[in-house]
């Protein structure tokens, strides 16, 4: 179809045409970025934790400070929990992946006297941690029972430099091994913590996500052979069959309360709930963005339809004349469709520039990454489709204008 008549018609309706183009451009720019933002959120929410998520339960008591019998209590608690029907494994750990609160982070140095740490990692510790969480070892070995050291003796030793009261071994997650020793095996390597305290890598585990600060490397974690107690902020983690979770949680709480009724429970939840909690802000934001996109596209479609039907109404006579001169209904229909396509294309082109500009603004103010190129063609296709759908109604009505209109005065 020849678009020259369309262009000359549009030339006579400059303001309305430009308004339509402007609206399409703005919508294109905003929608591209909004979809990108949603995608960012979804990607974040999709981060694998590396643990047997559906099998795990967490029970956490309020921090109560130093207690002399806390270690004996912890062992009693663990033994009691192990007895409960349906419990496959029990651990007492300092933190859990994606739980939002980090109790412990460490800087790893590759050489003593290094001024800046080579890598900031989340440090996990606790009794029976890898087995209970279901983190596989890729190479090396798990900790031996005699390697485990109590946290209460680790803390003073750490600052006093008393090496014999400190762990000598460590298990690193795969991401850490790859990052620190890209071409070699991590096993047997020595890394340094704090005041140049050496520890030897005895195992490399499958991926294990951090509790928070995912932007620092979501899978940068290490495991120390350290025991802690609930009094020092540890959580009981129970591994069970997903079907039995409710029942096991109830029995476990009851059993622990029987042992000490004065404890204040801070958390009692499945790991799935923990994960859900951690990403609730992201989920809410994604929901809002979906709403905004839907409303924007709706408003734009309504605007296009409104203007198109105005043009159809205004050109009834011209249409009648064209029909009288032999134009078919399809010709008229295509005319309006092509007109919309031309306007949409100009709008989309400007919209792409705008999308890029908005993305630059977001990168500057909200530390977002660059908009991937794929969003541009996707945005263009969406707006072309919406434009065509919105113009279809008015265009069909235009096609239905009978030729006899040409002979009437109004």
């Amino acid at each position, binding site marked *: 179809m020849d678009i020259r008549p369309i262009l000359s018609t549009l030339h006579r309706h400059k*303001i*309305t045409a430009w308004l339509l183009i402007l609206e399409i451009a703005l919508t294109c720019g905003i929608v591209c970025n909004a979809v990108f933002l949603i995608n960012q959120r979804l990607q974040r929410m999709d981060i694998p934790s590396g643990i047997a998520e559906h099998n795990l339960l967490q029970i956490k008591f309020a921090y109560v400070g130093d207690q002399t019998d806390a270690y004996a209590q912890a062992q009693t608690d663990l033994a009691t929990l192990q007895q409960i029907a349906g419990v496959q494994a029990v651990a007492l750990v300092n933190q859990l992946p994606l739980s939002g609160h980090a109790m412990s982070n460490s800087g790893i140095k590759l050489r003593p006297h290094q*001024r800046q740490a080579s890598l900031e990692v989340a440090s996990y510790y606790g009794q029976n941690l890898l087995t209970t969480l279901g983190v596989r070892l890729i190479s090396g070995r798990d900790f031996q029972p005699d390697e485990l050291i109590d946290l209460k003796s680790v803390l003073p030793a750490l600052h006093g430099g008393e090496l014999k009261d400190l762990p000598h071994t460590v298990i690193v997650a795969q991401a850490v091994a790859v990052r620190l020793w890209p071409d070699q095996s991590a096993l047997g390597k020595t890394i340094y913590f704090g005041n140049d305290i050496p520890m030897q890598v005895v195992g490399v585990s499958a991926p294990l996500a951090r509790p928070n600060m995912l932007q620092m490397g979501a899978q940068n974690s290490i495991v120390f052979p350290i025991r802690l107690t609930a009094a020092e902020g540890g959580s009981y983690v129970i591994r069970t069959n997903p079907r039995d979770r409710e029942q096991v949680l109830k029995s476990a709480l009851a059993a622990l309360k029987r042992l000490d009724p004065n404890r*204040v429970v801070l958390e009692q939840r499945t790991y799935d709930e923990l994960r859900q909690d951690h990403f609730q*802000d992201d989920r809410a*934001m994604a929901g809002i963005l979906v709403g*905004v996109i839907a409303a*924007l596209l709706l408003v734009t479609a309504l605007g296009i339809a*409104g203007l198109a039907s105005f043009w159809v109404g205004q050109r009834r006579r011209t249409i009648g004349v064209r029909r009288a001169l032999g134009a078919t209904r399809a010709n008229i229909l295509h005319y309006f469709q092509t007109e919309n396509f031309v306007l949409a294309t100009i709008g989309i082109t400007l919209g792409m520039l705008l999308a890029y500009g908005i993305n630059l603004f977001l990168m500057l103010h909200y530390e977002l990454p660059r908009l991937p190129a794929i969003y541009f063609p996707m945005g263009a296709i969406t707006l072309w489709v919406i434009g065509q759908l919105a113009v279809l109604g008015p265009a069909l009505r235009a096609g239905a204008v009978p030729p006899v209109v040409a002979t009437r005065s109004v």
Partner: protein
Amino acid sequence: MFAYYLDLALRSLKRNRVLTTLMVLALALGIGATITTLTVLRLLSGDPLPQKSAQLFYPQIDPNSKDGYLEGQTKPDLTMAYPDAMALMHAKRGTRQAAMAMTQAKIMPDKAHARPFFSDAVMTTADFFAMFDAPFQYGSGWSEADDESGAELVVIAGFLNDKLFGGTNSVGKTIRVGDHDLRIVGVLKPWSPQPRFYTQGMGSRSYGDGDAVFLPLRTARAMEMGPQDTECYAAVEDFRHLETAPCEWLGVWVELNNEGAVAGYKQFLDGYVKQQIAIGRFVRPDTSLLDLMSLMREQQVVPDDVRLQADLAFGFLLICVVNTVGLLLAKCLRRSQEIGVRRALGATRKEIFSQFMVEAGMVGLAGGVLGLAFAELGLLGIRHQPAQYASLAHLDLSMFAFTFVVALVASLIAGLLPAWRASVLAPAPQLKAA
């Protein structure tokens, strides 16, 4: 004349119901989104103590080592170590001063069978209440002498008083916190400034309910209550004796009533740090003394998501306004003939312009009313969000009025171009075409 335009506008709006509905709906959506996000933004970036915020200052110093220090770029830490906080307290260079840290209090209700529970608590010093204008329902705060002696007393929030004592005057009664019986000396009226400015950098929430328990710093420490957040700048031997450990965990606020006092305090603070450098305790000379609102901005208390939503809503409103311009223009061009007739009968350009502006304004008002409904709906949605501030999101009277201002301004801006186009139409051709 205005009444006549109003009548004309109503008629015209009625004639094109679909187009009118479209315009109102689009405008209302844009306004609803904008007002919703602005309400949240205002809530989160508001002044927590409007009557006092300009007089409250937050001194900061930097005890960290030379490692990683970039002169002029490294910012001092948010909290300070005990000796420094106490040095500032005892110097008494402000009209008032208070040191504070957030903690958790384990409260044992008196009644049999009642379970112990944890509440947010503040360990602080005597001036806290007067300095932050915390209003008392019963009793009062404590004295400096109580601070020094570590008296076993406590001020509780109204909601805790309601919970434990049914709202009666509980001054003089005791409450069991941890393993100690503390004498209640004061009960606060509801008080929870938003954002919770005095919790910055201390590991507590920035928004939400107020704290339940306020107790003297020394008393709390004697009861082994620890701060929520501790940051150490050197190797620590013993975490239990935080008073002597090289760890920062206290925030200090000072009240300074005029510019001279602020300049004087800054000088004093710089002097204090120089003195510490001279005795070899410190190496970094930077200090900072921000007022309350500057500190909130510096700390970027408002979450990124909220600012992003507000930006988005403005973009959305812009699209809705462009949309309204297009539709209004379509409507007024369609009435070219009517305009021609009115012009021929003696209406001036100004009158035509006013007539269309009135019409645009009516669209705006309708959009405002509907937008208000959308905003209420949006805020209802916000209140169901998991964020800390969610329950606070309500439309207040000023936002209510502001909605109509936004609606009118948006629609009048949208109406400018169509009204101008209508007023410059030459009447003759229109009449001929008719």
